[in-house]
């Protein structure tokens, strides 16, 4: 029963987010603040992960392609498609669920426990609109951008590792990237990133906003938010792949 009541409360929170702001300027300020926190706050870890994912993909692909009949440029094609289709949107979003998601849950949880949300309510501020909506919008703006950056860095990391280890030369790698390129993969990856961005921001916001208790419960809510977000990301990854990828 708890799961149904949680889903109901989550949907009510989403509905409650859409209300007329009391002061547009203050909301805009909050949105910019959240964009900075979610976007720039996660840029470092996203960059590091992306470069290494690309690098590992190149080395592992080369290890498996042992047939002399397969041209080396195929390595670049495989790295490109894996990074664009899966690693950049899914893996990066799972990491972001940990980085940004736990921050959102603990920030709102702390505000709830220390009565800051009550203080805002009493001032006459629509707290779901002021606290949750800017985070969701900021995630919808910044996470697809981070995913695009992750794609570029992942592919570049693959090239770097390929050239450094002598698996493939730069020219062949670049040529491979252009071969059989389907722009739809980018569209698909961005679609996924928007869905994941919504999950990464709204699910932790839900767990943080409704936390009850003290510091221990904030920690629990934060962990639960990350776990549920990761499961939902993987679930929607499968659903979107099954629905949107022509097989």
């Amino acid at each position, binding site marked *: 029963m708890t799961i149904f009541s949680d889903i109901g409360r989550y949907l009510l929170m989403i509905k409650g987010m859409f209300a007329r702001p*009391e*002061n547009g*300027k*203050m909301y805009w300020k909050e949105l910019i603040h959240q964009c900075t926190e979610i976007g720039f706050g996660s840029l470092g870890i996203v960059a590091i992960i992306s470069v290494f994912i690309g690098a590992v993909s190149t080395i592992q692909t080369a290890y498996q392609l042992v047939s002399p009949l397969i041209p080396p440029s195929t390595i670049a094609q495989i790295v490109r498609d894996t990074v664009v289709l899966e690693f950049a949107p899914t893996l990066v979003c799972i990491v972001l669920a940990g980085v940004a998601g736990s921050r959102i849950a603990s920030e709102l949880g*702390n505000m709830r426990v*220390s*009565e*800051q949300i*009550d*203080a805002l*309510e*009493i*001032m*006459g*501020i629509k707290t779901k609109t002021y606290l949750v909506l800017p985070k969701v919008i900021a995630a919808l703006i910044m996470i697809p951008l981070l995913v695009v950056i992750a794609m570029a860095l992942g592919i570049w990391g693959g090239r770097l590792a390929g050239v450094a280890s002598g698996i493939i030369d730069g020219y062949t790698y670049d040529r491979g990237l252009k071969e059989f390129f389907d722009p739809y993969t980018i569209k698909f990856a961005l679609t996924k990133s928007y869905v994941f961005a919504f999950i990464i921001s709204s699910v932790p916001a839900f767990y943080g906003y409704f936390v009850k208790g003290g510091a221990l419960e904030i920690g629990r809510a934060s962990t639960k938010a990350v776990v549920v977000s990761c499961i939902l990301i993987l679930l929607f990854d499968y659903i979107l792949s099954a629905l949107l990828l022509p097989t």
Partner: protein
Amino acid sequence: MIEVKNIQKSFDSKIIIQDVSAVMKAGQCNLIIGASGSGKTVLMKCMVGLFDPDHGSILYGGHDFTAMEGRDKTEIRKEIGMLFQGSALFDSLNVEQNIMFPLSMFTDWTYKKKLDRVNEVLNRVNLPDVNRKFPAELSGGMKKRVALARAIVLNPKYLFCDEPNSGLDPQTSLVIDKLIKEITVEYNITTVINTHDMNSVMEIGNYILYMYKGNKEWEGTNQEIIFSKNQRLNDFIFASEFLQDAKDMRMLEQKGKIADDRNMDELLK
């Protein structure tokens, strides 16, 4: 003036407050007292709209707050200031930003005008020169005063204080009580205070509502409380021997048995 009419509130079919009514007048400190778990915080949260009562109504200046929706409710809330037990200052904002927050949200004043108002209320709570400090850098008493400054910055008609003295030393408690009293009279605010502090009860309690197990057990003034025959109230208020002695002394004072200075001989007879 705030009127509380037959308020009942329950959680998971457990009744927390039952059929409580009270009238809290402007320009005076209205105290809600009672043991832990007696329902005073729930009553206060019903009054400010954080909880919806099961039945009954809360009237602000004759307008039924419980029946209001959306914008009307927001308008009343703009007239409410609240001082929370833990101060509830926004951690990420400094003192100036904390106090300026309601002004930025609800007025279109220039920064200069807002800053002037912030400094005015900071001076009112005797806290000049802390504008740039963050809540983590303040002591408990200073946090309470900043929270009080934030609560009054929009000139509210109603001020709610949830245990304003909790966690403070007796001297700082007195300062906070005095401030609340002065502000209440100065701005003719209807102030509602939830407290356990017996000093507050005796010093600033113009109207006192005593809650016992979710019910209104007694109501009256700080003068009347001394002569009250209500056993539960007496057990709660004058729990220690020291307070019992203080009560006896005050009773004698009230009856004029002690004239100008405390006549210990008279007491000893």
